[in-house]
């Protein structure tokens, strides 16, 4: 059974803080993704990675960066958190390198920036 875990379910940070969200998958998947989920907007892609140290910007990368030093781990970094980054953050992974296949999601981290 594929398992995607995220380091925190709930997180409260102050404006201007540096925030790290961690994601780990245990199925040796090549692809990993970060989305944010907001009411009425669905899920929007922030960044994804298709291999270690490889990353590509998604649809809304501004204010975020990522790191993938190991295949199983994909980190999302908010360099200087702002209130408009209050959201639910979902990590996902998938085994396909060459086509868009099914993705497996973690439980999400609800981040509040005050």
């Amino acid at each position, binding site marked *: 059974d594929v398992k995607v875990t995220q380091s925190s379910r709930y997180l409260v940070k102050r404006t201007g803080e540096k925030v790290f969200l961690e994601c780990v998958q245990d199925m040796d998947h090549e692809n990993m993704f970060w989305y944010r989920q907001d009411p009425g907007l669905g899920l929007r*892609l922030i960044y994804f990675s298709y291999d270690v140290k490889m990353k590509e910007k998604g649809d809304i990368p501004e204010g975020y960066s990522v790191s993938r030093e190991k295949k199983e781990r994909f980190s999302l970094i908010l360099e200087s958190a702002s209130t408009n980054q209050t959201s639910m953050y979902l990590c996902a992974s998938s085994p396909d390198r060459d086509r868009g296949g099914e993705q497996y999601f973690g439980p999400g981290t609800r981040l509040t920036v005050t």
Partner: protein
Amino acid sequence: AQSVSQHNHHVILSEAASLELGCNYSYGGTVNLFWYVQYPGQHLQLLLKYFSGDPLVKGIKGFEAEFIKSKFSFNLRKPSVQWSDTAEYFCAVTSPDTGRRALTFGSGTRLQVQP
């Protein structure tokens, strides 16, 4: 850019009613289509998917969806809903021939089933 539209934002049904949730996408090439469901407090999980072949796809928990290429649609159906189907439903698409591996999601439909 590719987009996905879910026109029903909030649907309220009584148990045993039939369900149809609309999904339309914009890309004209090859697509992989998905419906995901998020039950209250739970992970987003796959309900069903279409890659190729029979355009009528059956998923878990009695759900099915029909791919109609000419209408760019992938509507979700269930003949008789249960209270336990209360959840948020997301349609999503990838387009392999564009190289996009990430999912493009619709805005979601919140389904509330009343007992």
